[in-house]
C-alpha cells in the first residue's frame, strides 16, 4: 500500500486529501466533526450535489491516513484534469465566481456559510464549474460577517475587474499572487472610472482603504456579532451584481480570427480534418491534449469521439470563444485553457508543490500539435529535438503537423527577422522526432506543402 498526502492540502485543519494506491481520498478530522455532520444533516450536501454544484462523495471504511485526527474517510468524485485560475479565460473565472456566490447563498439557506472562497476550490467538468472542497463550510452564526469576503474579492472580483477594465492578460497576476490579487494593487491598476461603479468602489477601492486603515486592529466579539443575516445576504447580492456587471469581449487579439485568415484552401483544411479524425479513431485515446488549439475545431474531433480533451491556447480571446461554444453546446468532454507553451504553468506555492506544473497533473494518451511547431521552432528558437522531448513527456501518441519554410505562415514569422534557421526542413524535423518517436504514418496535406504525422513514443 502506497499513500501520500496531497501537497496542496495542508492549510485547513478540517481535513486533507491523500492518494492511496492511485485513488484519491479525503480525511475529515474530528475537529470538523460538528460542521461535517451539519453539512450532511442540514440537507446542504445533498442539495449541492443534486444541483451539480459540488462533487459528491462516498463515506468509506478505508483506514485513515492520520488516524489520531480522523473522523471520516471520504472517497470523492474526481475531475479528469486539475486546472488553475491563471489558466482560465475571463468567462471561466466569472462563472466560477458566480458559482461560489450561489453556493454561499444556498449554504446560508441551510444554516451554514462558506469559510473559504478560494478559486482553487473550483474545477471544471467541461463547461461546468464545480466545488471540489467538501470541507469549505461551517455553521453560520447569526451576526458574523463573511470570513471569506477578502478572499473572494482577491480571488475573483479583483482579477475579473482588472481583466475587464485594464487588460485581459492581467489574469496572469494570479500566477504571482497565489492567494489572489492584493486589493491595494488592484485598486492602483484599475482606471479611475471604476470608482463610479458602486460594486467596485465598495468591494475593491473602499475595501483596500479599509484594509490599510484597520490593519492589525483587533475586533471585539460584540462588534463581530453586528452583521445581521439580511446584511450578509445584501453583501452576497452586492458582490453578485458587481461580478455580473463585468464583461469582456474577445476582439483585436492575435489569433481570434485565425481561421478566417488562414492561408490554406478549404480542401486542404478538410483533408487535414479528415486525417486527424482517422488518426484519433485509430488510437482511440481517452485523454487528448490539443496544444495551440485556437478555438477548438480540431479538439472537437477528439472530444466528439469521446476523449476527454484539453484545448490549450496562448490567446485568451481564442480560449474565451472556445469556452463560450462549450457552454452553448453544453460540452462536457472539452476544457479550453490558456497556456503559453513556451513558459508552461510551473510548480508554485509552498516548496513549489502546492500548484503543480503542467506535466505533473496527468498524462495525455494523445497530443495534438497542429500548425504549432513552426511557432516554437522559429518564433521561440526551440530546436526540434527539445520540442520532441517535451511533447513526449506529455503523452504516448502524437499527431504533429510540419509546416515547410516556403509556407506563407512561416514566411510571415520570418518577415521581420534574419533567417538563421538553416536546419528548419522536413528531413531534420523527422530525424529529431525519430529519436524519441516512431513515425507510424505520414500524410502530405493536399493542396499545401504541409505534412501530418502520427507518431508513437519509443519505449
Amino acid at each position, binding site marked *: 500500500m502506497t499513500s501520500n498526502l496531497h501537497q496542496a492540502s495542508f*492549510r*485547513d*485543519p*478540517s481535513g486533507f486529501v491523500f492518494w492511496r494506491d492511485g485513488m484519491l481520498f479525503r480525511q475529515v478530522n474530528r475537529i470538523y466533526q460538528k460542521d461535517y455532520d451539519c453539512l450532511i444533516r442540514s440537507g446542504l450536501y445533498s442539495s449541492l450535489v443534486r444541483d451539480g454544484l459540488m462533487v459528491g462523495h462516498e463515506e468509506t471504511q478505508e483506514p485513515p491516513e492520520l488516524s489520531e485526527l480522523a473522523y471520516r474517510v471520504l472517497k470523492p468524485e474526481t475531475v479528469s484534469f486539475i486546472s488553475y485560475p491563471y489558466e482560465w479565460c475571463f468567462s471561466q473565472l466569472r462563472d466560477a465566481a458566480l458559482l461560489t456566490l450561489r453556493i454561499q447563498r444556498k449554504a446560508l439557506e441551510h444554516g451554514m456559510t462558506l*469559510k*473559504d472562497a478560494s478559486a482553487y476550490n473550483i474545477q471544471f467538468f467541461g463547461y461546468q464549474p464545480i466545488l471540489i472542497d467538501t470541507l469549505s463550510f461551517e455553521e453560520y452564526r447569526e451576526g458574523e*460577517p*463573511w*470570513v*471569506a*469576503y*477578502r*478572499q473572494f*474579492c482577491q480571488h475573483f472580483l479583483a482579477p475579473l475587474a482588472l481583466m475587464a477594465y485594464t487588460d485581459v492578460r492581467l489574469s496572469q497576476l494570479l500566477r504571482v499572487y497565489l492567494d489572489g490579487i492584493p486589493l491595494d494593487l488592484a485598486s492602483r491598476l484599475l482606471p479611475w472610472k471604476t470608482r463610479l461603479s458602486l460594486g467596485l468602489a*465598495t468591494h475593491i477601492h*473602499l*475595501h483596500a*482603504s*479599509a*484594509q*490599510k*486603515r*484597520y*490593519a*492589525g*486592529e*483587533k*475586533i*471585539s*466579539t*460584540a*462588534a*463581530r456579532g*453586528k*452583521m*445581521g443575516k*439580511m*446584511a*450578509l*445576504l*445584501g*453583501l452576497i*447580492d*452586492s458582490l453578485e451584481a458587481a461580478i455580473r456587471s463585468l464583461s469582456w469581449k474577445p476582439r483585436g487579439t492575435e489569433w481570434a480570427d485565425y481561421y478566417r485568415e488562414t492561408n490554406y484552401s478549404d480542401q486542404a483544411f478538410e483533408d487535414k480534418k479528415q486525417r486527424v479524425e482517422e488518426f484519433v479513431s485509430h488510437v482511440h485515446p481517452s485523454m487528448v491534449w490539443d496544444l495551440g488549439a485556437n478555438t477548438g475545431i480540431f479538439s472537437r474531433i477528439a472530444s466528439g469521439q469521446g476523449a476527454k480533451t484539453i484545448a490549450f491556447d496562448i490567446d485568451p480571446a481564442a480560449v474565451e470563444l472556445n469556452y463560450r461554444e462549450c457552454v452553448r453546446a453544453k460540452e462536457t468532454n472539452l476544457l479550453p485553457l490558456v497556456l503559453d507553451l513556451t513558459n508552461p504553468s510551473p510548480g508554485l506555492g509552498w516548496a513549489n508543490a502546492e500548484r503543480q506544473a503542467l506535466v505533473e497533473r496527468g498524462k495525455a494518451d494523445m497530443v495534438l500539435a497542429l500548425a504549432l511547431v513552426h511557432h516554437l521552432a522559429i518564433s521561440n528558437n526551440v530546436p526540434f529535438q527539445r520540442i520532441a522531448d517535451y511533447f513526449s513527456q506529455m503523452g504516448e501518441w502524437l499527431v504533429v503537423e510540419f509546416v515547410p519554410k516556403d509556407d506563407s505562415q512561416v514566411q510571415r514569422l520570418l518577415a521581420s527577422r534574419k533567417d538563421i534557421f538553416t536546419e528548419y526542413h522536413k528531413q531534420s524535423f523527422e530525424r529529431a522526432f525519430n529519436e524519441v518517436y516512431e513515425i507510424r504514418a505520414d500524410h502530405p496535406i493536399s493542396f499545401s506543402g504541409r505534412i501530418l504525422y502520427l507518431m508513437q513514443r519509443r519505449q
Partner: protein
Amino acid sequence: MKILVSGFTWVYLDPGSGSFILQILLAALLGGAYAVKVYWKKIKGLFIRSSSQEDKERINADREHDE
C-alpha cells in the same frame, strides 16, 4: 473607529481586520438595500400576478363573449 478586543474566535483564514470592519460598517446599508430589493420584488410580483390574473379573467370573459 476603535473596536476593542474581548474574546476572539479562531478562524483558519485570516479575514483581515479591514475586511471584517468594512462589512460591519456597511451592514446597515447592505441589509437595507437588500431588504428594499426583496420587498420591491414581492410587491412587483403581486402586481404582475394580479395583472396576469386580470388578463386571464379578461381572456375568459372574451371567450365567453365570443361563445
